[in-house]
């Protein structure tokens, strides 16, 4: 498997392990079985969303509405689960994926069909869905004792000694890796990111792909809504406020080019693992809140810098550039 990892991902993986070792040397029980299990559980949501964000950034887009989607879907499913406590737990992730996908489809339709810039569309939908949380909940919270037992048991569920959250994160990451490396759809996304016009001339259905990328991202954000509400036993208007920027940061750290066309799923995953671990470690090793924010910002900038100097060709393309006049487009 290691030969799949290019040096960049390997470097990131090494720094991630070094980060954990550092925290372990200062606070030994951080690297206990329970400690690592908690860490993996905590990282899962960010991994899922970073992978979701990665495919959008890859095609020169951005989805700022992922956290609002998460919060909205989380509220929808929280209200539904309170109203129907008897339904089997497996219903809730399915509901979330469907609701999240519909939220994503709105983004996709506005971006692909109406050609509105993604940053504008998703800024708008971000506010819309935050507002809709208030509308559907009337501003009240769904809190721990209202959720059905089974709903809250999800984060504590373990399979083969690891939490269900870990397995969900792993499945999403592995599934996306397969799609991006092994399918025509995935390869064509790289082409679109490298040069959308050229990709279109080469026969890639750009609008179609764009629509489905935002839909997939929405579905994964919806799934995260289920993970989030079951983990923190809380649904309210402010859930995951600002989390969208963490997903973008995770991608950037993972070497996903913000201009599109370059980046790997494995990179985004390690970017998320690194950033999420950092957020877990800074309080454990006793860094004050004031420094935590500054430090994580500095590390993101550092990662971008490494990104720039380590990438020899500016953009990785699977399709050669078209003729000079085509490339100017």
């Amino acid at each position, binding site marked *: 498997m290691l030969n799949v990892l290019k040096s960049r991902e390997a470097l990131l993986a090494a720094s991630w392990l070094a980060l954990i070792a550092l925290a372990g040397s200062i606070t030994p029980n951080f690297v206990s079985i329970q400690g690592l299990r908690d860490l993996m559980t905590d990282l899962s949501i960010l991994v899922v969303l970073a992978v979701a964000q990665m495919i959008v950034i890859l095609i020169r887009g951005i989805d700022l509405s992922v956290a609002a989607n998460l919060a909205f879907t989380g509220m929808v499913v929280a209200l539904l689960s309170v109203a129907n406590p008897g339904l089997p737990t497996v219903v809730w992730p399915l509901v979330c994926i469907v609701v999240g996908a519909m939220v994503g489809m709105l983004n996709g339709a506005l971006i692909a069909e109406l050609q509105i810039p993604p940053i504008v569309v998703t800024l708008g939908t971000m506010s819309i869905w935050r507002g809709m949380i208030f509308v559907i909940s009337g501003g009240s919270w769904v809190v721990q004792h209202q959720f059905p037992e089974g709903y809250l048991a999800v984060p504590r569920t373990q399979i083969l000694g690891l939490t269900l959250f870990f397995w969900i994160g792993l499945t999403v990451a592995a599934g996306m890796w397969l799609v991006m490396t092994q399918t025509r759809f995935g390869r064509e996304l790289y082409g679109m990111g490298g040069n959308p016009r050229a990709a279109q001339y080469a026969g890639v259905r750009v609008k179609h792909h764009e629509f489905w990328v935002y839909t997939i991202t929405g579905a994964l954000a919806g799934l995260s809504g289920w993970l989030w509400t079951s983990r*923190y036993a*809380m649904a309210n208007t402010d859930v995951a406020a600002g989390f969208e920027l963490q997903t973008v940061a995770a991608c950037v750290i993972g070497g996903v080019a913000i201009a599109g066309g370059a980046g790997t799923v494995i990179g985004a995953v390690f970017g998320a693992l690194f950033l999420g671990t950092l957020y877990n470690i800074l*309080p454990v090793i006793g860094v004050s809140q004031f420094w935590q924010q500054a430090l994580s910002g500095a590390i993101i900038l550092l990662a971008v810098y490494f990104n720039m100097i380590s990438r020899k060709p500016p953009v990785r393309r699977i399709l050669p550039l078209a003729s000079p006049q085509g490339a100017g487009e």
Partner: protein
Amino acid sequence: MKLKTLLPLALAGAMVAGAAAADDVRIAMVPKSLGNAFFEAARDGGMEAAKEIGGVEIIFNAPAVVTAEGQIEVINALIAQRVDAIVVSSNDPDALVPISKKAMQRGIKVMSFDSAIAPDGRMLHLHPATAPGAAKSMLEMTVDAIGPEGEIAIVSETPQSTNQNEWIAEMEKLLATEEFSGLKLVQTAYGMGQSDKSYRETIALLRRYPDLKAIIAPSTVAISAAAKAVEDQGMVGKVYVTGLGLPSELAGYVHNGSVKSFAIWNPIDLGYAATYLAYDLIQNDGAKAGDTLDAGRMGSFTLDDKLETSLPQPFIYDATNVDEFAEIF
């Protein structure tokens, strides 16, 4: 529009009209909005006081949504009805000043409770609790849960949260006194008003300080995240969470033992005391700084030089009463 505001007014009037036959004093209570369980409990407190005093009618009305404009309309209608006093929890401290002044010019006594009107627009304001009172309650609950000695930590909102910082400063003062000298505050962490961050900070505290016995969270988001983290870590019974939160939000944690007791303003006491103070204003034809006003079972209240006073300490909720109040707010 007028009809809309008058209709519930008439209903509210009709509801209490039968209770007291020859009312000679009419006190209107204007909360932030209708349909808010917190203020309905405050109204019940007001009714209790009215019954005790005798010959007092409570009129309870507010706009359907939380707006200053709606409150102005309601107050206008109350002026037309020539009530004797108006007790307001204001939606905007400044916007209500002109209408309150108009009411006072007509001889109506205007005071605010819970959320203040600017000093020009009211004769007194009743705070739900003092900062030293809240701080003392939180430390007393801590001692009640863990005994007089042990390591404690605080999970607050943001380093800039005014109320929280005031409470923490008061707690630090009290920790320096003989009464709480056994408690050792090891760290103040900040959950930034987010569930995930508060949760992570709590986990970090548990890892860093294996001897930690209590976590004080003076914030509604932080207290439930901290309780969830303690529960998930299997530390229930070893580490207690206390602080300020809502009964509906914390009922589940009180029952599973991660929270033994917590505090928040009691809306019934607040409405009760506010009604007494309004009655005092009517009887004494106003009030000035330094006046001591009677408030039945709540004792007496002395106005400071800003014509403000406050309930002594927040109300403590535990397994015996949390369910009853969880229904309310």
